[in-house]
């Protein structure tokens, strides 16, 4: 059994959010991943983000495909609705879920195999559709559940545990999402919770497709020397381009900053994100420049992290479709059925 219920222990002193819930209410079952797996850190960042956003867990649909990363929805938000779909096909299920109920918070957790190999098409089209969801790729460059094959995100020259060297170029989810018109594109590292939590919060609140590609090392199959997805390698080469703070709606901005240093961006629900540039050269609202910057650093072996691109102006799937504001699943049948008279009238043309 890879599902172990976790005893719920609530200490009196635990902080409560606006809904009166503690962080325990956002946790899930016990993880059955390997000790030290990067994915567990992402899980804990997700728990933290939803807790801090005061989102009722049952208003969240957590979805995944197949693979180690796709097992993690069992380990957070146990009071949310879960959907563990088939391999690489979670984006289509998310699309249907969004189509039926536009009021739900959609969270997708996927892996590099799930999104960049078998599910490359579905991933790309969800970006293109600007589906309103937060999509996290837990990226470790390797297939864990089938024991150590390279994935499509493995870097050239990266060595597998058994010594094989990858010679094919990696598919970079971030650059791909940018090229396909992605409206919120970020990269982070499972070992950097201070960066990851505000990123997840902003991604959830972004209206449209929000990608966070999280480098999340596989301790069992890809954490050795000569791997470019190991903890050591990632820590050495990750490069924060932009620092992000998330500010809830109607909250006074208390952080002291010099004007010009910080760029506030308002999200659709009135919340804001504050972006502090770490690198002068970076422009988070210029798609072309952002890609150039990422590529330039990639050539030096550096991994650029942070919120790398955002555009709040593009319409999401429902805005494009002009879908009615009420979730389609909630429309009363009487409003949907044209009735007998309309049917009779319509048939004039068939005579």
């Amino acid at each position, binding site marked *: *059994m890879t599902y172990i219920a976790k005893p719920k222990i609530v200490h009196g002193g635990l902080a409560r959010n606006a809904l009166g819930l503690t962080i325990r209410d956002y946790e899930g079952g016990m993880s059955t991943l390997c000790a030290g797996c990067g994915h567990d850190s992402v899980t804990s960042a997700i728990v933290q983000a939803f807790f801090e956003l005061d989102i009722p867990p049952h208003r969240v649909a957590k979805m995944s495909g197949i693979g180690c990363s796709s097992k993690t929805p069992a380990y957070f938000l146990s009071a*949310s609705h879960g959907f*563990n779909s088939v391999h690489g*096909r979670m984006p289509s*299920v998310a*699309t249907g879920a969004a*189509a*039926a109920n536009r009021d739900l918070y959609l969270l997708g957790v996927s892996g590099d195999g799930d999104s960049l190999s078998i599910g490359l098409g579905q991933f790309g089209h969800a970006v293109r559709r600007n589906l309103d969801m937060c999509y996290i790729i837990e990226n470790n460059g390797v297939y864990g559940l089938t024991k150590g094959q390279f994935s499509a995100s493995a870097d050239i020259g990266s060595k597998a545990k058994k010594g094989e060297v990858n010679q094919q170029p990696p598919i970079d989810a971030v650059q791909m999402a940018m090229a396909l018109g992605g409206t919120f594109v970020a990269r982070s590292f499972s070992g950097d919770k201070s960066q990851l939590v505000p990123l997840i919060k902003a991604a959830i609140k972004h209206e449209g497709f929000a990608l966070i590609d999280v480098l999340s090392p596989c301790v069992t199959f890809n954490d050795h020397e000569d791997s470019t997805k190991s903890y050591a390698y990632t820590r050495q080469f990750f490069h924060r381009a932009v620092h992000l703070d998330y500010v809830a709606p109607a909250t006074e901005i208390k952080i002291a900053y010099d004007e010009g240093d910080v760029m506030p961006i308002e999200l659709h629900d009135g919340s804001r994100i504050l972006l502090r540039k770490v690198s002068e050269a970076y422009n988070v609202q210029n798609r072309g420049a952002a890609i150039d910057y990422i590529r330039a650093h990639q050539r030096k072996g550096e991994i650029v992290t942070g919120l790398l691109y955002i555009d709040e102006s593009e319409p999401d799937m429902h805005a494009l479709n002009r879908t009615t504001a009420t979730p389609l699943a909630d429309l009363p*049948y009487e409003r949907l*059925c044209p009735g007998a008279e309309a049917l009779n009238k319509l048939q004039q043309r068939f005579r």
Partner: protein
Amino acid sequence: MSARAKSRVNDFVIRLANVNGTGSASANTLLMKAIFRMGVPVIGKNFFPSNIQGLPTWYEVRVSKDMYLARSGNVDVMVAMNAQTYQKDLKEVSPGGALIYDSTWPRDRALSRSDITIFGIPLARMCNEHFSNARARILMKNMAYVGALAALLEIDMDVIKGLVEEMFASKTKLIPANMEAIELGANYVREHFEHPLAMRVEPLNKTAGHIMVDGNTAAALGCVYAGATVGAWYPITPSTTIMDGFKSFSERFRVNKDSGERDYCIIQAEDELAAIGIVLGAAWNGARAFTPTSGPGLSLMSEFLGFGYFAELPAVLFDVQRVGPSTGMPTRTQQADVLAAAYASHGDTRHVVLFPANPNECFELTVNAFDLADRLQTPVIVLLDLDIGMNDWMCNELKWDESYRPDRGKVLDAEGVEKIEKFYRYLDSDGDGIPYRTYPGVHPKGAYFVRGSGHNKYGAYTEESDEYQEVVDRLNRKWHTAATLVPSPVIQRSKKKTGIAIVSVGSCDYAVLEAIDKLSAKGIHLNYMRVRAFPFSEEVTDFLEEHEKVFVAEQNRDAQLKSLLTLETSYPKERMESILHYSGLPMTCKCVIEAIEQAEAEGVAA
């Protein structure tokens, strides 16, 4: 006029041989509708290529006072407008029939027949002389042959005029030119030939209360009336017009006049894998959702269909069957996805399949499919074929019962969840194999995990043998429940007692009905059962058991319906004999009659 010739009034077949992309389709529809409006039963079948312009295409119109609406297997009047296929078209005319060709260009003298009447009409020359615009010259040739046929077959010119006016209601300027072209053809016939023919149309009153519609359009209406709000699809012939129809009806009925907001969401997916994923995602969240596809799409959707079966999610899938295997012949008809639909996906899976036989059933069984999918919490496949889906069928007017309300099955709303201590997704509380479900976002206590991996009755992941088996055994109980809920077969009993029966499915219906009539006149009496659903209900098994011998008529090579009956009923397969038609063209009554006569002759000899 001989007695035989006399009998051809309102009883003959016209085949129009054209080049595709030349605008013949609207002329052919005009011809068919004019006959329909004269009160004479008629049906049109389009045999078209997988191509946009330049390849041969045929349109067959059967006029039948007896309401025989299958293909007869004969061609009585051939309109041979395509030089490329002339030789073949000439050959196809039944003795005593007629052929019309464009005499602007000389015919090969070797290509002649003495047993048919041949009419040469200089259609191109007349149109070239009369019209100056190049495109009009091509299009008007079609109208000119409609005029010639109208004169030869005595089709009411006023009816034609009325139809032309409706056709061009939004471009009234085009009406005079089209009527002129029709007159050109008609006048030429009046001046040069003895007319009308023995085969001709006389007004009747047999089409009142009927419409002419294709099955895809009727299925699309079914989706609207069933309350479907999410449609996902990937374009594929011959299913595309289901979504075209759903879109146009939704635009008409489901758009807020003031805000322009839509009460529906149509998603053109990147492929069929995504289309079915979208449907499952939407159905999980409580919307009625569907996807139209054809054979290749069904293959691609198989993995998710197994997921839908195991995770117990409703979905409605239309497979408008075309000729396989593989790409096959995309614009030709077949019923060769019966087994693929019934057992789609790996592992122990079985799916509810409905088989409409005409546009009326496309409408009604579509509504039924959504109810069954919700009630049984499982994908339901509606198996049409190109013949039903894309051809115009004369059928009863569609009726709507205002008291209909969707059966959403066992769904716990917020109040329902509130009342129970703890919600478990896969418990069989009622003993019918159907558990209760909740929609996401409705109640904190209603959350559960949808998964295609092994799960126990509580909805939790499991790899325990007992827990796994308990769930799949319960799914089997649900399957038995399904057999009691699906539409019953349609059974027609012979007036004379008989131990022989014929079983068929879907669009074979009219061919079989006509064959039964004609065989009965020859002293061969057959009971008839048309299967309308899988799983097979008790009525299906009972009917089989009543007979010592059963012919199974279907449109595929491998006798797929017969295989399914063999696997899923206890009726001995030695007592079933196949009648198979898989040329890609709709089944003819001739093929059914010949097969049964031959079998009976052999039986007598033995």
